């Protein structure tokens, strides 16, 4: 086998032998996410191409170096989409990078996270061994769920070679209602609507206005638009792309950007600085110079999590893990990557 997979496996085996830390790179569009590390780059973008795609089966298998754009174009032609609406953060974004980062976009609250769409993976672990888990069917409980474990692991458990993802049909029609709303009222409204069967597939509050995307048949969408009231944006795809890619003006601040997750109906957190909200209030973006420790204290009290998404280097990008959890993480890391060569320290300083 002389394909790029074999070359990558050989590089990893070699690095393991010499205990050389590797930094796994896809399109290098999300390198800002997580802790910054110094290690020998290993480029995975070369391993690209769609392996299998059958629209009626609602899944796609592709090599992880495939550009996200390519995937979205191919499945878009068949009126399908990635359920988790991943941010690209640049045209070079790859499928593998999206899965390893585990970041979901506006559709998260209605269609699930990256991990919820994971059906199978092929990886090369830290010993340079090629392994397959999961498959291409929706239901699969044979063995532990290693596929989902890979999403959001930031490449610390293995180099993703290919993944199989569940797809979703594109809704017939999507419009977005726009209503002026304060931060606190927006939280209240989003959560009240979430308790109804209205086909809401995204919400965004930019500080002044609440945007509510409705998806489905035109009759249903129109009825909900009038139930919500206010103005509306027709064919709102472009708007949601700007939210997803954070090119919307709500993200324009130069202050460090915090990605805060709380139970959706949590009231205003009282962190200073502008706040944008998504996911019915479960995701709150704060551009703020407030101390990390203060932010963590406030979010902990709200039973939430705070991640420093963008900004100057800090020690803890994510909430530190309690000791019992840290121990399990370290052991799992050891199980997949005994020499600790794959993106060491990318997620936590200890592994």
């Amino acid at each position, binding site marked *: 086998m002389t394909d790029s997979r074999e070359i990558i496996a050989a590089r990893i085996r070699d690095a393991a032998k010499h205990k050389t830390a590797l930094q796994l790179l896809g399109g290098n569009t999300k390198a800002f996410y997580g802790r910054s590390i110094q290690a020998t780059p290993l480029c995975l973008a070369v391993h690209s191409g769609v392996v299998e795609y059958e629209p009626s089966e609602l899944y796609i298998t592709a090599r992880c170096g495939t550009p996200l754009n390519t995937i979205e174009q191919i499945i878009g032609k068949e009126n399908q989409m990635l359920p988790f609406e991943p941010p690209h953060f640049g045209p070079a974004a790859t499928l593998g990078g999206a899965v390893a980062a585990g970041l979901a976009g506006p559709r998260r609250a209605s269609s699930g*996270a990256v991990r919820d769409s994971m059906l199978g993976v092929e990886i090369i672990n830290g010993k340079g061994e090629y392994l397959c888990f999961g498959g291409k069917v*929706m239901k699969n409980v044979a*063995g532990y769920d290693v596929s989902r474990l890979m999403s959001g692991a930031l490449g610390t458990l293995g180099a993703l070679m290919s993944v199989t993802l569940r797809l979703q049909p594109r809704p017939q029609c999507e419009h977005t209602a726009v209503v002026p709303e304060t931060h606190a009222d927006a939280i209240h409204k989003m959560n009240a609507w979430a308790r109804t069967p209205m086909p809401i597939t995204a919400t965004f509050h930019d500080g002044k206005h609440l945007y509510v995307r409705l998806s489905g048949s035109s009759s249903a969408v129109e009825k909900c638009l009038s139930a919500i009231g206010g103005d509306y944006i027709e064919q709102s795809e472009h708007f949601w792309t700007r939210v997803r890619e954070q090119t919307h003006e709500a993200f324009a601040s130069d202050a460090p950007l915090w990605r805060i997750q709380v139970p959706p109906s949590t009231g205003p957190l009282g962190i200073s600085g502008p706040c944008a909200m998504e996911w019915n209030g479960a995701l709150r973006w704060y551009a703020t110079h407030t101390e990390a420790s203060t932010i963590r204290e406030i979010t902990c009290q709200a039973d939430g999590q705070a991640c420093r998404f963008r900004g100057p280097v800090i020690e803890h990008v994510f909430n530190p893990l309690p000791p*019992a959890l840290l121990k*399990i993480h370290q052991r799992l890391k050891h199980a997949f990557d005994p020499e600790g060569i794959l993106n060491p320290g990318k997620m936590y300083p200890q592994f």
Partner: protein
Amino acid sequence: MIKLLAKVPWRKTGRVSSWYAQNSVGMKMQASLSELTKRFCQVLPEDAVLVKEEQLVPYECDGLTAYRQVPRLALLPATCEQVQAAVSVCRDLELPIVARGAGTSLSGGALPHPEGVLLNFARLNRVLEIDPQNRTATVEPGVRNLAISEATRPYGLYYAPDPSSQIACTIGGNIAENSGGIHCLKYGLTVHNILALKVLTVDGEIIELGGKHLESPGFDLLALMNGSEGMLGVVLQATVKLLPQPHERKVLLAAFSHVRDAGSAVAAIISHGIIPAGLEMMDHFTIQATEQYCSPGYPKDAAAILICELDGYEEELADQTEHARQLLEQHQATDVRLASDEQEAEVLWEGRKAAFPALGNLSPDYYCMDGTIPRKHLAEVLEEIYALSGKFGLRVANVFHAGDGNLHPLILYDANEEGQLEKAEEFGSEILQLCVRMGGTITGEHGVGVEKLDQMCVQFNSKELQTFFAIKSAFDEHGLLNPGKAIPTLHRCAEFGAMHVHKGKLPHADLPRF
């Protein structure tokens, strides 16, 4: 309900003891039963420590009745603190621990260990909190699946995964098996509907995974716990996602003269962008059995029927129902009926729900399989299963979750007849290997347990199995939790000697296929 506890004559045949002989954990010097009782009575109320034969027999098997084994003793803790104390005694004495919810597992997941403790969660059955604002419920592990939806109904909310055992099975068992149900095509499996878990590790530590917020940093251990068959930790508490009750539902029934047409109708519905809440298939034999049992009024001559349930927002539903009906007709449905009201819808579902007991009525025993395949191979696989039925001389009925390609072939046999059980198992094993060859998996929702250990060797190679062992030991170094289940030893696989069909992969797998 099927006969969960039907008596079988091979109870003491040594099938189980030989299985455990291969899977025994290294035990400390064995403590006597009276010493054990004393230790556990120090931390649990006396009535929570069961040691007498007649107290233990009810736990000798789960839904997979072919395997039976009484545990050394059984415990019935009523609080998390009691569970913690009990586990700590087990750790000190190196006693294997098998957790048990309702014991409806169909793969032997809750089969006791002869040297170990059975930890029964029946008394941990409280709904701790319903949070309508955040649309969550927090429950103890022994809460029954259906009890969650019953408790949350007054708020207009429900818990979506609905295994057909839902009146009995517990959320702890659902998590361990990542259970599905009729509606998981649209609403996902257990893993998609669990927001947070409180887990007791065998080291005695409590870890909290997830929360009412959507995502947590670190590895996705929450996902890993789902489907881990009680091997990684003991679930003490779960927070589940609740959904608003849909406006309305529509139920269609379509009859077909050929299984092949029914199969392509399934693919057509999905590829036209319709995701039904449920899409179930029943074959000719099952239709006949059900008609005999409860006469739901299914077309008796049909080779197969599909039941298609759509739900959602009122306006959307009308459009989708019409579209689905057209697709069914285009795929040669000989008859398509739409339930005109809720009562008629119930009747259409009644037959599907009664299918297992109806088949149970026709045969002393049956063996339920659980392979999953890509939808496009439905007809081909069903035809092959019928051929195998001829080869083994055993009848087979198919009633299953067609929408997600999850087959449940029911092999009918008579355990009292010499050799029939073995034949049924061999038949089942061939079906599962067929599923793997077709690019599917050996278990969609019932788990591996003790039942499908051999077939695991077909689906995974030794490096992959070693990864599973390493994951297990990251949580449970000494292998005390449900030892011997779910992941076969390499030794066992060598004995099984199956040729490794690598993920049913096609030749030239490297070429793009659009």
